[in-house]
């Protein structure tokens, strides 16, 4: 059995994926998607010069990278404690659910675990779960926050 964990700041979804992988002897991969949609999201702003916009976009990118690092460290600690091997993958996309669905398509997974509401990048304002459920071919486990 192959499980994919879609990462955000939820430790409950991490624990649930690790528990399932442990109980079923499954192969666990975790995917962190860097949100590159900030330029488009702020695209209708017309007042600022490109320098000020650039400063913000750099700031948002740095924040994404910092979150990736922190989330990876958190997962590694929990995986070690649970005695489960976990392969960490990173992708970048303008829409996070699209990257999750792309990984599901190529990875041959049996189960996707993700938190709900899913809080990764700009998905704090969107319904990632609905998007993923529409496109996923495998089972999806939504873990409440």
């Amino acid at each position, binding site marked *: 059995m192959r499980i994919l964990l879609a990462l955000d700041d939820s430790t409950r979804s991490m624990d649930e994926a690790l528990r399932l992988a442990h109980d079923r002897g499954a192969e666990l991969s975790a995917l962190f998607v860097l949100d*590159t949609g*900030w330029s*488009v*999201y*702020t*695209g*209708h*702003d*017309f*007042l*600022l*010069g490109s*320098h*000020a*916009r650039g*400063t*913000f976009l750099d*700031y*948002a990118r740095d*924040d*994404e990278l910092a979150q990736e690092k922190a989330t990876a460290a958190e997962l590694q600690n929990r995986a070690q404690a649970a005695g489960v091997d976990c392969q960490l993958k990173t992708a970048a996309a*303008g*829409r996070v659910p699209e990257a999750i669905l792309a990984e599901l398509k190529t990875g041959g997974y049996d189960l996707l675990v993700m938190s709900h509401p899913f*809080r990764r*990048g*700009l998905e*704090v*304002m*969107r*319904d990632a779960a609905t998007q993923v459920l529409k496109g996923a071919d495998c089972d999806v486990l939504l873990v409440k926050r």
Partner: protein
Amino acid sequence: MEEKQGVAKVVSIIPGLAVMVLTLYVLRIFVEPWMTDAVVFGQKGWFVKVLHLNYILLAIITGMLYRNVLFGGKIPEWAEEGFRTTRLFIKSGVIMLGSLYTIQSLAKVGGIAIGLIMTFVFGTILFVMWFGKRVGMERSMIGVMGAAAGVCGVSACIATSPAVRAKPADVALAIATVLGFGIMTMFISPFIGHALQLTDYQFGAWVGTGILNSGQVLATCLAYNPTIAPGTAVAYGEIWNVVRVISIPFVVFFITMWYWRAEAEAECITLGGIIKDKFPVFVIGFFGMTALSSLGMLGAEGSSTLKLMREVMSWIFGLGLIGQGAYIDIREIKAAGGKPLQVGLAAGVLKYVIALIVIMLFVSKEASF
């Protein structure tokens, strides 16, 4: 999405831009004249007289319908680059609006605009600082929300957030809050203005002070009176808008100083550095056009150059506002909530209502230019 360069970039702009141009053409040439003549509930021109619909409001509504209904919440990749030209169109249009004024006319109403804007900008920021603290909002978010509610939504959020270390995800929610409030005011303000029989001067001054987002100020003024000429709502509203835009670096400086004053690892900040980094350069273009107009280089009022320029402006604003509408995702705005919504809404409503009262009590019906 991969960034395209050169010819590929230009080619990628065409499909989305073609959709916007075609849409505006249909709205202006077919829909607007039809609305003017259509008889509804026994009244000729009901859409225009009762709903106050014109091609500007239709442009925004159509843009919103494209994004939220036709495209299912996301501008498709083939149209993305074209719709992104929105910024270019509105920025160019605002620069050209500078031709509506002369230095003398700006001097006549500029003083009132500066006084009102500065009072409301800093008054709103102080209110957000007080109310935000009261409801227990994080200091960084108080800073971002203060800038957003005080100056102009998206731009101020973006300019302030790196300086106060606000989380980008929280900034996105703050933007959703101010955009949501702005959309509401954009549609109800023309009704209130007509009901209270505000003149173009009063209306421009009111929405220029009370509406949070600059693009929405522009749209609301054009919705109230689509004519682009000296003495119309958009001419007055834009003076207020430009004064507010110029205040962005000063507001960022003020909020940054306030934020770091209470932090242990204070950063070295200078007003000069912030002005250099955050000053909206296109404002120089706006004043450049005013200078040309003052020197008579664009011809006298009624000249063919000015007529052509205003016709071009009406088309570029129309295109820009279709794009603005297409950037409004209703589902994203509905996600706004919690303390940012509470504080943003309270500050926005207060500013909107007090600005209306002040304008009605203290601003004359007609301006002196």
